[in-house]
């Protein structure tokens, strides 16, 4: 490969540590590929209306992986993109998934009209497993959110959240720490208030750090060469906090180690889940963020 996607770290040539897959608990699907109806400037996989790095997945493709996932005892399923609801098969995919386990959808909330929300509610009611929706927002108001997520997005997201709540679905509001204040106690309290104002009597919130890759590298700066993990820095059994010890990510182009490295060909591990049950070297600087901040993309 000619494209060095990982910067060389001069003066440090210890090998990266390897993380064993302890159990395949969480299976992700890049179900909308990298196609999104927004182009947020902190998106760590740089999704946009024209980004075809990964394509949409079909129902049949997803079902094939579900069969294998059941054999391997997967505990929960996550769907992301891009925007999952741009995928015309999304509701059929959720129905197939909810027959075998709980499903989580990471959405930007723009395509949640009241009809869709009612259908999602019906899907949830027909399953013994939970359907969880996670809606992204990056500010308490349009002035702080829209410069990141796009003009008019604040109001449209709130609308989606209102529709979910009206259908009896209680989404998790997901905010990144792109604005420093979001992760503080005061910031969290403000988001809880915002949700209550929309009609959530049981507000739910998740705060995530930002990954300095993709569009975010241009917006907030890329990694420095010291931001890398080295063998021996952590005991060999000390990787439980990294999601790659318990997850894999499926896209239309195969199975990848985790939801973060889908734009790095080195992140791809094989074609089927069974190809990817081995260990993975933590070579990428994003692994540094995961390790230091203890990030998990899960709810």
């Amino acid at each position, binding site marked *: *490969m000619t*494209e060095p*996607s*990982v910067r060389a770290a001069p003066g440090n040539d210890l090998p990266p540590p390897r993380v064993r897959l*302890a*159990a395949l608990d969480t299976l992700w699907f890049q179900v909308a590929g*990298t196609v999104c109806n927004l*182009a947020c400037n902190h998106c760590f*996989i*740089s999704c*946009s*209306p*024209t980004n*075809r*790095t990964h394509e949409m997945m079909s129902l049949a493709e997803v079902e094939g992986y579900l069969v294998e*996932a*059941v*054999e*391997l*005892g*997967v*505990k*929960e399923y996550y769907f992301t993109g891009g925007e999952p609801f741009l995928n015309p098969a999304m509701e059929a995919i959720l129905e197939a998934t909810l027959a*075998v*386990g*709980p499903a989580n959808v990471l959405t930007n909330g723009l395509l949640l009209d009241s009809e869709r929300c009612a259908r999602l509610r019906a899907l*949830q009611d027909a399953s*013994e*497993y*939970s359907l969880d929706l996670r809606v992204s927002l990056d500010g308490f108001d349009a002035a702080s959110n829209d410069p990141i997520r*796009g003009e008019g997005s604040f109001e449209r997201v709130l609308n989606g959240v209102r529709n979910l709540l009206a259908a009896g679905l*209680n989404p998790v509001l997901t905010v990144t720490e792109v604005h420093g204040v979001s992760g503080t*106690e005061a910031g*969290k309290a403000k988001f*809880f208030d915002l949700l209550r104002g929309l009609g959530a*009597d*049981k507000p*739910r*919130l*998740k*705060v995530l750090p930002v990954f300095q*890759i*993709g569009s975010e*590298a241009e917006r907030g700066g*890329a990694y420095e060469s010291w931001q890398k993990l080295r063998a021996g820095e952590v005991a060999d059994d000390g990787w*439980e906090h990294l999601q790659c010890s318990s997850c894999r990510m499926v896209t239309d*182009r*195969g199975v990848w180690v985790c939801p973060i490295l889908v*734009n*790095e*060909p*080195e*992140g*791809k*591990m*094989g074609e*089927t889940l*069974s*190809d990817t*049950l081995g260990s993975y070297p933590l070579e990428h600087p994003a692994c540094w963020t995961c390790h230091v901040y203890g990030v998990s993309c899960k709810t």
Partner: protein
Amino acid sequence: MANRIPEDAVEKARRAAERQKLTRHRGLATWGEKLVPLERFRKAVDEAGTALNPEERADARQEYRRPNSEGPAPEAEGPYRRIAVFGGVYNNHCALAALLEEAHRRDAEAVYCLGDLGGFGPHPEKVRPLLEQGAVKTLQGNYEESLASGREDCNCGYTDPRDNHFATLSYRYTEAHCSPEFKAWMGTLPRQRRVRVGSRELLLVHGSPRRINEFLFFSSAPAAYFETLLDQHRCDGLLCTHTGLHWHRRLPSGRDAVNVGVIGRPANDGDPRVWFSILEESRNGIDVELVPLAYDHQGLAEEMRREELPEEFVETILSGWWTTCLEVLPPRERAASKY
């Protein structure tokens, strides 16, 4: 000012930038921080990763489900005809006393506690003599782990500051009212036990066999997950607690996964009774009964008030609804709750 940039020019530039953002990937793929021709990315992806041949794949799958310890499984206790199992005492000595009576009345041959002795309720030291009196075989929960290792807080890490506040309060209270001997004893408790009921061999854990603090809720832990877990641990059933909500799942293979419930606080259903489980040998394997238990909850509430424990906790004991730390619930369980 003469050379001020006209506002519509700023607006125009902003719109152009926005357009560029939306269309810049035409024919290009993102590779790390760069844009490269789509074909280049796809070629690299096709070459990346190790695809196994079909036999190797089948082997990999089998290997994954294989029992994950070498040699014979550790000796199981029993066999018993009938056992009583509970978790989450949370200092509720009133419920524990009632449970021991009920287990005796139902002729349980052995009584197991799956951990979490402290937190929430009053007077942690009252729990210990009861456990001894009832010959309760106890596992270590995450609470015992924290107390025995001298941690400053229970490390629950809730997103909601209010939840963290209450979790810390209850941990600190228990921390301060437990003797060093009791804490040291907690550190000696086993994390797993294997118990035979009739012909079935059951694995008893606090959270899950993988993690002492893993949450296994009915709506978030599917059948396929348990089938694999039971294969890996060579057992016919799994008993766990930790979440505070009881359930029983009969698996397609005929084996069982049970959350035995907790006796320390009600199950968030508007009923002040608490829950435990009776497992009994039966003709076609094993019967699992989830049992509601009434106890002197008024008395406990008064004792909590005398100890100046949060009124929110007292309300839970009296009303049966949880008032704090609900964010761990999956959507289905959360929707059924009052708060």
